[in-house]
């Protein structure tokens, strides 16, 4: 529930690899157009489509969030390892009962129109985002966690919570909305390190550095070229029209064979906050996947290492829904090994035998048959589904492929729970809280507990984790939670994808985080061209 509510069950369409490679991470680039002077100090990136909006109060798609975060600024930022760092708030303190959070604001933060950023703006931001009649923003849900936000003086903000809520801090990464400007302000006045310069819809969006910012960028300008096609983006990187772009696995292969390109461009890779999994629906004692041994057998029957090789190792296997780069990750919890023999034994222990010799297991006259539901969208998803089908057939489980258009998928998955097992990708939050995915409260319609997990131990650990503000104590709780999740295996983690990013070697200061190259502190503010000449 922390920051970035946007990222929920991911969009399978985007099956990570390819799209992430191409779509999510930004790309950058430099102009083939402009004069030499113009180009120095500019980085050109690419994005596949226009952001839906640049409005602070309505941003909800990926690129809208990226731009509102660049143009805007927040009380708290996240560094490359996703740890909170001070931004407009110079410091924050929790009350003893952990229900009140107090922020001290810096005095030198200014809106782009020169007015100071004060506590009134923070209160205004909270009010706008929690008002249901005002459209919807990806931040709305996170903002609603606070019961009251007040401003005792110009530079202090006090936030009250009904109960201790550890993920709360992350929600203050929300870009602030100026109280002195109209909502949906066409001027797009923010207080961030980048100012809005121009947006030619369908073509490009340009930001210029805000030199008045307390942490001003080193570059002068960021140009986002809107290039929907992945091949064109890659070609533009080759011609030097872009300085940076995400690559598909196939493009990584051709890149690695091209020595000329490698002299000019470098490649980096980062694991995104996303994972791909199969949820085994457990509706209670009668259901196929009620027995944890059966679910574990399913996991052990699927060779996940082989799956990652299918994608050129641009992804990694994992044990649970805890991201390998997160602070709460417990590396002692290892994925179940690929062991079809052991899978068969587990299934036999659960009562499944092939008594009629037809190659499909059965129990009490009922065959082990089920459908795997997923959303249509990419060839990769189809490939993974077919792979899982083939692997499960080898242990005697007959799985049919149940592909659906996205809206139908959502309707059946989330609203009707009309599936046996479901495969999808999920965008994780920055905070490791897994309430949405595994708390028994989230089994209801519209919620995201797709495996229908109802486990008292898991519920208790999730709740305790949310209440615990101390990092060490919280980590210990999540360690126990990972062990429990691993033990009952409500979902099989297929992989955590990585996103490859190619960029001009002369660009310095480029780092990546699980949120990509832009959405962390310092992000693009640290980029600069090498002293010996910058652009070609």
């Amino acid at each position, binding site marked *: 529930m922390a920051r970035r509510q946007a990222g929920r069950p991911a969009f399978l369409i985007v099956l990570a690899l390819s799209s992430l490679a191409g779509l999510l991470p930004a790309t950058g680039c430099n102009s083939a157009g402009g004069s030499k002077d113009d180009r120095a100090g500019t980085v050109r990136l690419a994005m596949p489509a226009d952001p839906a909006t640049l409005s602070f109060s309505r941003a909800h798609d990926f690129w809208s969030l990226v731009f509102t975060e660049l143009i805007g600024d927040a009380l708290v930022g996240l560094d490359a390892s996703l740890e909170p760092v001070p931004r407009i708030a110079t410091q924050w303190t929790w009350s003893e009962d952990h229900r009140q959070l107090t922020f001290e604001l810096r005095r030198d933060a200014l809106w782009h129109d020169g007015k100071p950023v004060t506590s009134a703006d923070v209160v205004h931001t909270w009010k706008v985002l929690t008002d249901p009649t005002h459209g919807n923003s990806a931040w709305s*849900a996170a903002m609603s966690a606070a019961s009251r936000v007040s401003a005792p003086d110009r530079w202090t903000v006090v936030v009250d919570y009904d109960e201790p809520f550890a993920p709360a801090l992350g929600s203050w990464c929300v870009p602030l909305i100026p109280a002195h400007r109209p909502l949906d302000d066409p001027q797009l006045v923010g207080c961030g390190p980048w100012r809005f310069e121009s947006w030619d819809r369908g*073509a490009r969006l340009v930001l210029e550095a805000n030199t008045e910012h307390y942490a001003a960028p080193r570059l002068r300008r960021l140009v986002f070229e809107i290039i929907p096609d992945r091949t064109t983006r890659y070609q533009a990187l080759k011609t030097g029209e872009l300085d940076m772009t995400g690559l598909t696995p196939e493009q990584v292969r051709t890149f690695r064979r091209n020595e000329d390109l490698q002299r000019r461009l470098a490649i980096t890779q980062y694991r995104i906050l996303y994972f791909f999994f199969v949820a085994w629906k457990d509706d209670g004692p009668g259901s196929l996947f009620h027995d944890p041994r059966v679910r574990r057998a399913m996991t052990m029957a699927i060779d996940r290492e082989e799956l990652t090789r299918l994608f050129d190792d641009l992804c990694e296997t994992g044990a649970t829904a805890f991201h390998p780069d997160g602070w709460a990750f417990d590396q002692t919890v290892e994925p179940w090994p690929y062991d079809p023999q052991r899978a068969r034994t587990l299934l036999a222990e659960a009562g499944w035998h092939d008594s009629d010799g037809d190659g499909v297991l059965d129990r009490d006259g009922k065959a082990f048959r089920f459908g795997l539901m997923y959303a249509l969208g990419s060839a990769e998803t189809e490939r993974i589904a077919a792979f899982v089908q083939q692997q499960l057939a080898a242990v005697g489980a007959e799985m049919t492929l149940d592909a659906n258009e996205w809206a139908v998928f959502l309707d059946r998955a989330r609203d009707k729970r009309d599936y046996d097992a479901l495969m999808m990708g999920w965008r994780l939050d920055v905070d490791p809280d897994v309430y949405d995915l595994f708390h028994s409260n989230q089994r209801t319609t519209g919620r995201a507990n797709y495996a229908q997990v109802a486990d008292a131990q898991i519920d208790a650990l999730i709740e305790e984790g949310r209440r615990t503000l101390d990092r060490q104590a919280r980590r210990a709780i999540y360690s126990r939670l990972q062990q429990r999740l691993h033990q009952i295996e409500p979902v099989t983690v297929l992989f955590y994808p990585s996103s490859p990013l190619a960029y001009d070697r002369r660009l310095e200061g480029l780092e990546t985080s699980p949120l990509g190259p832009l959405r962390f502190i310092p992000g693009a503010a640290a980029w600069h061209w090498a002293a010996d000449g910058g652009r070609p």
Partner: protein
Amino acid sequence: MLAYALRRCLGALLTVLALSFVTFAVFAWLPGDPLAAFESQRRGRALDQARRTALVEELGLAAPLPARYLRWLDNALRGDLGRSLRTQRQVTEELSHRLGPTLELSIASTLLALLASLPLGWWLARKRESLLDRSALVGLVALYALPIFWLAMLLQALLAVHWSVVPLYGRLPASGASGLGTRLHHLALPAACLALHQLAFYARFARNTAAEGLDSIQTLFARACGLTEARITWRHGILPSLVALITLAGLVLPSLVSGAVLIETLFAWPGLGRLFVVAIQARDYPVVLAMTVVIGSLTVTGSLLADLGGRLADPRLRHQVSER
């Protein structure tokens, strides 16, 4: 003729109305949530009840389908096509922003294609049934059958990446230059790719209609009367094929604004075709509906114009009408 024209206009109007209703109804009856445009952007996270209620209220989704359609129609007739669900901007604003680039590309490519294909077609008609004509026809069929995106990617790789003679993508450079030369430079490759595809079609069309005229008994008679070959070619070959071209207006007119999705995507051209694709993916039905109605109306208008224009230009067709 006047009665016929009126009858055709009325028919066209009814067709457009029916088209808009069917599109409207299809979107209403599609499985899934009508607020999916908001949901998919939220990566599948359900909207909370208060927000859902507010949105249903704002979008007027609670009313029954016929009432919603009538309200949409009423607004549309007054020039208000609603707001895009994805961007919250007026649909008319979204469309008009993209119309210019699309017209630029489609008009340029159609002109290019016609300028190149008609003379080629007429020349082939004069050489009809020769080895040259036959091999050219095979070549044209092959060109027409080539996937346009493949052709475009090949030309991009050669002309933009390898030889750097044209820009790889985009309509205007980031430098802000927007002179005629810059525009034409950016337009050249995408327009040529589209034109190559159309060229194969038009050239065959021109060749066949001209050949038909040149093979007719009238040509034989003209030749017997001692008319010059040039005059014969003009009167019995070129002229009839130009008249026949009018009937193609029904195809050309809608394609001018529907946008070439593949080419626009490949060349990052900010046209209507791409807007349409993004709108469909986001289930942004006000935009899809508006585009469908606009393209549908142009198709109907195009075929109407082709029909009436053909009759005006070609006495034989008029004659058929009066006989009927």
